[in-house]
């Protein structure tokens, strides 16, 4: 195992490593296992792995312990895998559920009673082992790219439910009880470091719809235990695949911001890594890479998150790219028209790959190629479904500009009571209705909003909305996701509306967070309110409020719903970056800007639905002309879109 491999492995785990620590690992008899041990035991709050973080004693001890407990761990993991592949779609989403299925012993008491656990190390190791095995399952199935990532979720869960796990790990004697689990991880996770790594690498080289499709399939089947998966069966079944609701872990610490961006980088860089052979940025600063063999500069690639964009006096662009090892400046010359054009559309905090050569002083890369994660060309629509989904957003019930007449017409349509035969025909096929945020106008969203409200009480606004939704035929599944006017936290990802509000709505309404990925009987729709469209309009040339689907297209190219941090989108730093567009859905549905737009991009349907609110004072000021009372209806069989007008 050479230096670069170590640095790379560490980098991908989201850490940095000091040269002396690299030396220490290299000098070990089994560097690979040591590295894995280090990565699996390292404290979350450490960013740079120094030599003092490498617990050689613990490693030795753990190796012994691992040998002893190898077989049970394998058994368990096998059992677990079996369980997974059975496609159990139960709503269980906690590690404890997973644990309880294979092991018949009373786990609850184990988890809750720490003293007992220390006395019976076996059960502790079991539970930890489960972590390892579940992770490994995921790792294998998701072709090695959804890496364990030192799984913070489970870590923190354990440390909450038990006495400090890190303490236990730090002490030699106890470490031995912990380690077997790490051994389990090692065994299973090896795919990522070793053979499987290259396997998945090659798989991604030929990135195709099929690959990602399978990987998605895998993610789906294994996601029975993943966060946020809910299945609602029935005539028009839905499965909520990804949703923050109930899973927000943010408590407002710095580390969480770092984790959030690391997750973004690792997920998006993995997509890119399948298409280019990139090195850690740190390695560019080493002599060996920047001196070309015979004067000519060697072409290198890096993958980084854009941390700064500036222009030189001569009109060239300079990007600052950052990965978890360091950052580097990349120059895009304005003579290379095509590349420059692409670069001027880049925005802050998106993840891109760049190929180019490093200048002699080792400070700058001259780019020749820029790669965005984008959607593979070969992606295809899912088929085999039927019926229609109706997409709306920005209803703004309670606003004095709410267009109630048009809205009632729309409800009549859903009820099959339209005047025209054609409309009734369409209505009869409607299976789903999706609302992408801003169900009500809310209160206190902007200064002096009370002057523009008909209903001043926010709960009254929702009750009014609920009354409307009660009119919708019960066979139509309604999915409601919140927006910036709704009574949930403003920071995205936003959880679903609170129970107090949901309770008023009929049971055919399902509330999800924002964003949310939902499977509508085989068709995947990604629902996002669209706050980030404001950012994209301001920073990407050619993207405008008049054609909002263009903004969604830009999201898709970046495989991210809200790339730029610190501008208009408020974020809640979660462990997982919920904005990442992976898997690629069949439909992306946004709203927020009150204009209508439909586009297709590589077989993904992009829809920005309009509004039910007439032009507000604010919109008048910013010259925004809304498109009210227009409803896109998508055919789930052939993705044909019809726009119905209700004014």
């Amino acid at each position, binding site marked *: 195992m050479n230096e670069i491999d170590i640095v790379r492995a560490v980098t991908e785990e989201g850490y940095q490593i000091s040269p002396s620590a690299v030396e220490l690992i290299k000098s070990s008899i089994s560097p690979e296992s040591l590295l894995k041990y280090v990565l699996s035991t390292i404290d979350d709050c450490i960013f740079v792995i120094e030599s003092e973080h490498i617990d050689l004693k613990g490693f030795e001890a753990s190796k012994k312990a691992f040998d002893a407990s190898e077989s049970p761990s394998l058994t368990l993991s096998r059992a677990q895998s079996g369980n997974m592949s059975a496609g159990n779609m139960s709503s269980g989403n906690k590690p404890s559920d997973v644990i309880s299925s294979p092991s018949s012993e009373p786990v609850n008491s184990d988890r809750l009673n720490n003293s007992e656990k220390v006395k019976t190390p076996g059960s502790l190791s079991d539970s930890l082992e489960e972590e390892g095995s579940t992770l490994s399952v995921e790792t294998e199935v998701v072709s090695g790219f959804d890496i364990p990532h030192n799984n913070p979720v489970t870590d923190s869960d354990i440390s909450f439910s038990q006495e400090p796990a890190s303490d236990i790990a730090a002490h030699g004697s106890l470490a031995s009880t912990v380690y077997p689990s790490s051994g389990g991880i090692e065994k299973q996770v090896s795919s990522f470091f070793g053979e499987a790594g290259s396997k998945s690498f090659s798989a991604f080289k030929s990135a195709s719809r099929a690959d990602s499709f399978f990987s998605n399939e895998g993610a789906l089947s294994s996601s029975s235990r993943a966060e946020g998966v809910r299945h609602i069966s029935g005539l028009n079944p839905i499965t909520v695949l990804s949703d923050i609701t109930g899973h927000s872990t943010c408590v407002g610490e710095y580390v969480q911001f770092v984790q959030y961006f690391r997750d973004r980088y690792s997920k998006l860089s993995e997509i890119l890594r399948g298409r280019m052979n990139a090195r850690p940025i740190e390695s560019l600063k080493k002599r060996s890479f920047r001196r070309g063999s015979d004067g000519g500069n060697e072409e290198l690639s890096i993958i980084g998150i854009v941390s700064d964009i500036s222009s030189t006096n001569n009109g060239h662009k300079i990007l600052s790219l950052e990965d978890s090892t360091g950052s580097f400046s990349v120059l895009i010359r304005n003579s290379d028209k095509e590349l420059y054009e692409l670069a001027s559309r880049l925005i802050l905090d998106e993840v891109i790959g760049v190929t180019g050569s490093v200048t002699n002083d080792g400070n700058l890369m001259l780019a020749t190629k820029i790669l965005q994660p984008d959607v593979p060309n070969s992606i295809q629509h899912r088929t085999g479904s039927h019926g229609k989904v109706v997409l709306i957003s920005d209803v703004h019930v309670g606003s004095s500009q709410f267009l109630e007449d048009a809205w009632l017409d729309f409800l009549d349509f859903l009820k099959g009571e339209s005047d025209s035969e054609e409309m009734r025909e369409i209505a009869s096929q409607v299976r789903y209705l999706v609302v992408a945020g801003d169900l009500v106008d809310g*209160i206190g969203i902007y200064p002096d909003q009370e002057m523009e409200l008909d209903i001043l009480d926010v709960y009254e606004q929702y009750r009014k909305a609920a009354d409307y939704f009660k009119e919708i035929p019960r066979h139509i599944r309604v999915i409601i996701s919140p927006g910036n006017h709704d009574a949930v936290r403003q920071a995205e990802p936003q959880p679903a509306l609170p129970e107090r509000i949901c309770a008023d709505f009929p049971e055919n309404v399902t509330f999800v967070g924002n964003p949310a990925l939902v499977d509508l009987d085989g068709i995947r729709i990604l629902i996002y309110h669209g706050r980030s469209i404001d950012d994209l309009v301001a920073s990407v040339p050619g993207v405008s409020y008049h054609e909002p689907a263009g903004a969604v297209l830009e999201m898709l190219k970046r495989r991210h719903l809200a790339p730029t941090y610190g501008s208009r989108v408020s974020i809640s730093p979660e462990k997982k970056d919920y904005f990442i567009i992976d898997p690629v859905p069949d439909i992306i549905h946004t709203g927020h800007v009150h204009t209508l737009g439909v586009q297709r991009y590589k077989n993904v349907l992009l829809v920005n639905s309009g509004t039910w609110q007439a032009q507000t004072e604010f919109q008048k000021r*910013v010259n925004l002309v809304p498109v009210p009372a227009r409803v896109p209806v998508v055919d789930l069989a052939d993705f044909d879109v019809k726009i119905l007008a209700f004014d």
Partner: protein
Amino acid sequence: MGETIASEEMHRYFDGLEARLKEAIEIANRARARGGDPRPVVEIPLAKDLADRVENLIGVKGVAEKIRELEARMSREEAALEIGKQVAEGVVGSFPSKKDAVEAAIRVSMAVLTEGVVAAPIEGIDKVDLGKNDDGSQYIRIFYSGPIRSAGGTAQALSVLVGDYVRRGIGIDRYKPREEEVERYVEEILLYKRVASLQYTPSEDEIRLIVRNCPVCIDGDPTEEAEVEGHRDLERIGTNRVRGGMCLVLAEGLALKAPKVKKHVNKLKMDGWDWLETLIGGAKSGESDEDEQKNKIKPKDKYIRDLIAGRPVFSHPSRPGGFRLRYGRSRNTSFASAGINPAGMVLLDDFITNGTQLKIERPGKAAAMSAVDSIEGPTVRLFSGDLIRVDDIKEAYEVRQQVEVIVDIGEILINYGDFLENNHPLMPSPYVFEWWIYDYESVCSEKILEKDLKNPSASLALKLAEKYNVPLHPKFTYLWHDINRNEFEALRKFVAEKGTFLEGEGEGEGEGILKLPLEDSVKEGIKPVLEKLLVLHKVKEGGIFVEEALPFILCLGLDRSLKEKVSMPDTGDMVEAAGILSGFKVYPKAPSRIGARMGRPEKSDLRKMSPAAQVLFPISNAGGMTRNLVSASDYTSCMNAKIGEIEVELGLRECPACGKESYFWRCECGEFTNPKLSCPRCKIDVRGAETCPKCGRKPTSVANVKLDFRPIYKQAFENVGERERMDIIKGVKRLMNGQMTPEPLEKGILRAKHDVYIFKDGTVRYDMSDIPLTHIRADELGITAARLRELDYKEDIYGKPLERDDQVVCLKVQDLLLSYDGAEYMLRTAKYVDELLVKYYKVEPYYNAETIQDLVGVLMIGLAPHTSAGVLGRLIGFTKASVGYAHPFFHASKRRNCDGDEDCVMLLMDGILNFSRSYLPEKRGGKMDAPLVLTTRIDPKEVDKEAHNIDLLARYPLEFYRATQEIKNPTEIESIMDLVSSRLGKPDQYEHFMFTHDTSNIAAGPLKSSYKTLGSMIEKMEAQLSLAGKIRAVDAPDVAERVLKSHFLPDLIGNLRSFSRQRMRCIKCGEKFRRPPLTGACPKCGGNVVLTVHEGAVRKYLEISKEIGERYGVSSYTRQRIELLDYDICSLFENHKVKQLGLSDFMSGSAR
């Protein structure tokens, strides 16, 4: 310099000041000649007159002469407009194009308007350009930039008028905006309000009105990062970013100062500005203007629209119980400062003290407060039930614990001049003693002592009323207009039926006491009526006792035996009713109430930069966060680095004699060095040229150098003969000046020794709120009459020789007072300057001051932010108040008024020794707040015109009081009021000022506003609300709601938002990051990175908001907003999974 017109005595005064100034400059020149500074001479030139200042500032030849000529026959503003026209027409100066002429014309006009003092004409106007209307005609565009702020709203607004005046002169058409451009202005200004801040934000319709009608295109360069969202890429507007200069001129200039602009438009008879009428009338309701003409003044709530937590409201707009307007001027009011009784300051929980700024309903928008104890204090109801008026501060301290309700907060003294300055219609004057005395004098020839007239007995008042038909004395005039007919009738009936009148004995009639049964009067709501009327009374033995009650009884239409004498007249006006019933002339006691809330607290504090510095010497990060030179001298960058070697940016310099390079202005050989310029790109030496001959870039001498700091440091100690025993000497991280010229370290050592701090230009400054003062008494300045006589004060205001400490004398225009704290600081500075002279410059000490008394008579420099011209002043005494008292002309010459502004003073010798232009930052605005010139003599003609509207009478004429009843415009009676403007150009412009209301102590009142003494914001807020609950004129729930809406909720929302979009910061090197680095640690220094916004900051006001919302029953809308924010905050900062585990560990997630 033009001839100063003054009396002999004043000439002596000015000559004396100038002689001492000259002497000081000679000493400083001798000292500086020794080469211890960047230049061997004093760098503050003495300013000549305005005309010269303008010509030098703008650089148009011949302007000075023309200005002098024009000034001789017209006013400053007219001259400014006229000179602009002449420049544009080419009468003065010559320009390559029409555009250049117009540009120069506007700059010249602007400079004249701002007295050639501020930097706005050069830095605030970027350029002037010509644009094309859709009909093919041309219009002018004025590009404003950020520093235009320093010109002040009036000059900003007038610059637009200049533009219009000039364009007419040379035949350019008006600006005809397109509709999308109008909307762009609307969006942009409102956006600017959000990203920066505006003192005044016009409504959308006001903006539309201005843009559609303004004949000149107000344009500007982008100043903010923010971009407009709609109305982008407009053909005639070159940027999508926000143009701050434009926003300022339009909002704080034209919109806010419309009345002033209108005044000039009328004077110049310009057409096309009629729309200003609509603007002044208020775009939102066109009626108010009409109403004021119908002799009615409507409440204005603008001043309480944005309430800040902890700054209490003293009165809602025009509410009974609020400040009662009293016209007049005390020696410490006028010029945007107003007086209240110090007892009121105490009873209003110490929130107001001398220098505290109040936002007021009218006539202006703000005023600084001064203690005036000759006006009425608040009327309060004690817990005992007594209703008493407290005029005496001692009594105020005694009763403050017993106060239950402040029924009336007392009088506020505002002078006529402030109404004139703000062009505000005169509000009806209450019937006050000053007015009554005219009525008395006109009919009564009886000799009565003035004391008795001021405070007559009831019998005297009745006698005068009955015998001479003098209107009822104000003392016995109650606030009849504050009660309605029902209340009046109930009161009358109650007194008749249940009252007992105990006639006084011996003392003549009228001294009797009215007794009312307490229980019944409370039950029947009579006591509140008495309180509304301000009928003072005592409560004892189950009864309410009203002393000297006969006038009151008569006004109710009852006779001595409390029998109904006359039947109730048929009128809704209760003042009239009281008059008819009593048969006396009765006038309204409080027809005009002024609403007010606290603005900002007073200031009296030393100036510190942030972070504070004692010497302008760069040490980069070697001194740690405190920039300590002591630690920099021991600094090692790594293990084997040389001790005390630091890497800093300095300007490379070269000795012209021996060719040696160094970083200091003196070479070892003693020669002064020159900056060694080179091109930053081509790396070639550029000698003398403005630009690089190869690439045309601006050359620089700045270089990153490894400076062997330790020996320099040690040498400096040796040079001044100090021992290295300092704990801390604060340097700076990096120099801001162009050639990176550092200050000599020796100065820092001595400053650290005396614990003084410097500003960016090397001077030591002390900041104080500006308060005007026109008359002084030795006993309140902490000096003696003898000392005053030495300072050329010869007579008191009545022309008597100055002999006693308590004689009132007229303050000389350049004399000023320091707070005691300021004096101590200046004493330390004087000691530092003396040591500097002795130890560093090796000359004689100058001040030799041991106590602050030794500083009396020393010369100082006054300097206001945004200006570049200091004013010479002389210290004559001290005050306990935390403010800087000086003659209004002195403040006006710094272009300040006194509505809560603050500025600084420095010692003259400190300024001329230590100031150097070389230290000034090179960025835009860097030359502001630096003494680039020194005005040595104040010419009232050349000070800010606002000061010309100060009235100087000893009593206002009767016509004045009559005019107020008709709500006349103040300009209508300008000629009968003795104003500064009428004395200009006469010797009396400096002397023989008078005032109408005296005060026994200018520094009376609390020493510090409780806003400053209370701890946390929540404490302040509690105090604010508790005061709101006590004052009758304040609606506490409304205050609570407004504070929540305009302070706490925006704060919560803002912090919540910024938490989720926050920047990160390295705690080691202070580097900021837009988002966290992926490595987690600081990529620069490896230090720990932390959040800049924490949960605590977000939650700070949540609990108190909830609590207050409940306690004061604010609107459910606001309470719901708080509830949602609470929910939002919890959702963001609580781990949902933990909650789930705790609550429903194994419950499977429900379908919905």
